[in-house]
């Protein structure tokens, strides 16, 4: 009998705890916000790109979110879960930007755009590389067929957010996050079996 520890159905990388449970590294607020930018910028920008935001808009929203964080902290507001706070602000700004753009973004995840070059495994063996690329194209197609909210949950989880942080970012319940993640991963798992 295996001693494998129990896992929830979905256990993407565990989030680091930022904010309430850890004192700021830097003595000044500017340094603290800059440190957080260093930790979270790539994750935040990757999430914004994954939901279809153009790169330039994504960069602007990341800047705006961190400036809002500075003002938030400067006013002595809550330091509870700053990572969740900043993802929520950026997500809401992205939705607003999408509304202004006429309700749709061009998704960078279109299967046609996701070329073999982009998805190719850097394995030396050409056959392995082709097989891996085909698997990933299939996975991408399954991913693209999923409802938008499912894809958002997956992307946020892949960026290290906890269930609770995802729920707060998307404004849905904890149970809904669990349901959406389990459902979408089950679909991806079925696709991998084919």
């Amino acid at each position, binding site marked *: *009998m295996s001693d494998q*520890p*129990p896992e*929830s159905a979905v256990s993407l990388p565990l989030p680091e705890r930022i904010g309430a449970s850890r004192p700021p590294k830097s003595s000044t607020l500017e340094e603290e916000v*800059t440190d957080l930018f260093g930790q979270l910028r790539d994750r935040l920008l990757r999430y914004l790109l994954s939901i279809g935001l153009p790169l330039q808009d994504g960069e602007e929203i990341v800047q705006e979110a961190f400036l809002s964080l500075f003002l938030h902290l400067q006013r002595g507001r809550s330091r509870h879960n700053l990572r969740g706070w900043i993802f929520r602000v950026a997500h809401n700004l992205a939705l607003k930007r999408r509304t202004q753009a006429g309700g749709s973004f061009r998704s960078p995840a279109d299967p046609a755009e996701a070329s073999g070059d982009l998805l190719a495994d850097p394995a030396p063996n050409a056959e392995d590389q082709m097989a891996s690329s085909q698997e990933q194209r299939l996975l991408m197609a399954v*991913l693209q067929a999923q409802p938008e909210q499912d894809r958002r949950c997956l992307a946020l989880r*892949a960026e290290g957010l906890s*269930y609770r942080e995802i729920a707060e970012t998307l404004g849905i319940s904890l149970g809904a996050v669990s349901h959406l993640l389990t459902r979408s991963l089950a679909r991806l*798992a079925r696709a991998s079996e084919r």
Partner: protein
Amino acid sequence: MAADGELSAGRAERLQKHLSACWECRSQTRELEEAIGDYVRLHRRRLDPMLPPAAGPRALLKAQLSELASSHTSRSWSWFDLSAWRRGLVAASAICIAIAIGLLTRWEWAARELRPDAPGVPVAIPNARLTPGVAVATSREEVCRESPPKNKMVPVSVQRRVFQAYGIDSADPGAYEVDYLITPALGGSDDIRNLWPQSYAATIWNARVKDALEDRLRQLVCTGALDLPTAQRDISRNWIAAYRNYFHTDRPISELSP
């Protein structure tokens, strides 16, 4: 959820016992773990090449933070902490700055007079003295020549000035969006006199409703049913009244839907 510590100790223990005994469940769990691995690799491989280096954005953020921090610090300076010649220098600089930004200063003085008593009160209709509305395009051909332009993001420094003018500098700017009164799709300018803080707290007369009005007005203008100056005047005077007029309703259409 167990991995996040969201399950009670009792439920987590029951889950562990069940998994120990259930081969099928463990097999399914492994399949899901593999799917997670595949997804995370795909997510990273697809998006990481698109990320530009962080150094430039980081430097930009630092510069903007310094500007924000210095503007905050300057408010807490004590005049009497400065030596006489420095006080003179500061006074001279202040006079020069005041002259250089005369128009802006006048605008902001007007803003102070008109600040609401309670900072942070949701703004549904812009103050006509602060935000009379400014248009750059004055002909139907200019507006209707191409597909409607996107609203450009308002720079943070301009947003701050708008918030301060409306007396919501102590409220959470995240609760507001700085919006164009006359939308660029109707020839509106990005002049500060065409910008106002629209509250996210507004549940009925909100940004989506105003967007619908903008679409309707542009459609009317571009089909020749309405002249552009009238559309610009109506939306800038009172956009809610304009909505009621052009949609022939007292409440937003979306509110009336079941």
